């Protein structure tokens, strides 16, 4: 344990998932929830925080147990840990932000099956120490959050004319009020979320050419 807590290597665990190993745009994990909860910014933010918390703590717990879990039943052990954490998060959301929790409906429960979490537990927590696993969980959660927030921002702005529920586009612009503007109804639909994620992937890969597969 001679390594400092925030060594260069450890910081890389935090920053890599934001860019060159982003869970959504590069590893292409967790797409389902990214499309489902991003029609508005608020549920997207709550979802990001929930996933980040579950991911970080599941990583720590599995990492602590990594030497005692028999290899053949590791998946079921991971599932038990994730499910307990998700139930905790779900109850807390219901207690403090009930309306958002209703909006997110099944998708909080479905964090259990979010491929990012299983992926990180398998790929990282089973082979690394708790602190590194914690940073990896926070990093990947943040990578997931960044994409969700970007997608949610554009979908809410163009689809509903608001940001975080506040009307941004003036009412007088709308056709119904004698203006010229109309909200883009397609931004609310899931296909446009997929296209938005696709555009982000396109932009990212044209900036970082190393990511382009042949």
């Amino acid at each position: 344990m001679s390594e400092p807590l925030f060594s260069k290597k450890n910081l890389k665990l935090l920053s890599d998932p934001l860019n060159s190993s982003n869970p959504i745009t590069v590893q292409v994990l967790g797409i389902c929830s990214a499309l489902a909860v991003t029609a508005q910014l608020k549920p997207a933010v709550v979802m990001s925080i929930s996933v980040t918390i579950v991911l970080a703590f599941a990583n720590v717990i599995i990492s602590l147990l990594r030497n005692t879990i028999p290899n053949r039943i590791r998946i079921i052990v991971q599932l038990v840990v994730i499910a307990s954490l998700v139930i905790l998060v779900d109850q807390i959301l219901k207690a403090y932000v009930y309306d958002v929790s209703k909006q997110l409906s099944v998708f909080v429960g479905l964090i259990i099956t979010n491929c990012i979490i299983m992926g990180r537990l398998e790929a990282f927590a089973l082979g690394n120490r708790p602190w590194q696993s914690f940073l990896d969980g926070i990093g990947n959660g943040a990578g997931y959050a960044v994409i969700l927030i970007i997608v949610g921002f554009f979908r809410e702005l163009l689809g509903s004319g608001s940001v975080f529920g506040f009307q941004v586009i003036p009412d007088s612009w709308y056709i119904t009020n004698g203006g010229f503007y109309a909200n883009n109804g397609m931004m609310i639909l899931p296909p446009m979320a997929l296209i938005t994620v696709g555009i982000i992937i396109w932009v990212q890969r044209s900036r970082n050419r190393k990511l382009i597969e042949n």
Partner: protein
Amino acid sequence: MNFIKNIFENTKPYVQKGAKYHWLHSVHDGFFTLFFVQKNTSKSGTHIHDYIDLKRTMGMVVLALVPAILMGMYNTGYQHFKAIGELASTGFFEIFLFGLLKVLPIIIVSYGVGLGIEFVFAQIRGHEIQEGFLVSGMLIPLVMPVETPLWMIAVATAFAVVIGKEVFGGTGMNIWNPALVARAFLFFAYPAQMSGIKVWVAGSQATDAITCATPLGDAASGVISYTASDAFFGLVPGSIGETSTLAILIGAVLLIVTGIGSWRIMLSTIAGGAVMGLILNAFAGSASLSEANQVFFAIPFWHHLILGGFMFGAIFMATDPVSGSQTVSGKWIYGFLIGILAVLIRVVNPAYPEGMMLAILLMNTFAPLIDHYVVQGHIKKRLKRATVSGRTA
């Protein structure tokens, strides 16, 4: 002609490799080939050489669209003056001029935005300017209601060119017909501006007094509001270029004579629509249908061919050589299913009175699959025939 040629000769040194404006060379080439036939020939491999290149193919399609454009302009004016009750007192040229002034801005916006994006992509990616948009840019205005706001046309065109075409690699690589991508985008993004009773007649957005549904929209609610001759000549409300079956058929003749449009796809699409119309007729008396549906089911099968965008789609959209089927038997299957689906969607699902768009986009998606199985079928048949020294291979 020499004058134009001199301009290109004089500007050429500036865009040659290493020169200051080399990044503009694809623009230079693009305009040069617009005026003159290319002298350069392919250097390697096997090629079929013909004087007709992509630009001239596309030019022929645009030429075939001219009757539909002119008729669309006239009908725009006709519907407007009919709606405000001044049809009898308005002269032919006045009607046409009104339509011209309504339609021209839409065409200009579509070409301006689309070609602008094509130019930018050509510069960034360093390839030649691709001519595919010459046709798409004309098709996009023709499939829009006349009252669509211009900025929506611009957004839809940008979406169609970038997401419908450039992400797949540009002209020749797209899965779907770009003009239909533009229309589908608007249809789902701004349904209030793309369907209903307030968009089909010029001037209806401004005053509440003018409302007019398309014949298909009426038929979906159980009202027959057209005569067959009006629908054939194009004097019914509808998207700009789709109303006149006659004008579209004139274009079809040109496409078939020059060999640019596939007559197999056109014929099989029409056959598919007619067959589905007959099937629906057979069920028209069924008691389980709603009253409105019984009326729509019962219209003569050939009315489906002259109403709405059916003929326009069959002649100009389904035959798109990039997104349609390539094999001969594939073309028959592809066209026939478009016809069947278009009539099925428009009659059975009243939310989508224009089924042609969705039918073509759906079959565009399946065209490669159809081709795959046609080719596999040929391979199997020939393998059965082939023998190697007495044994079957």
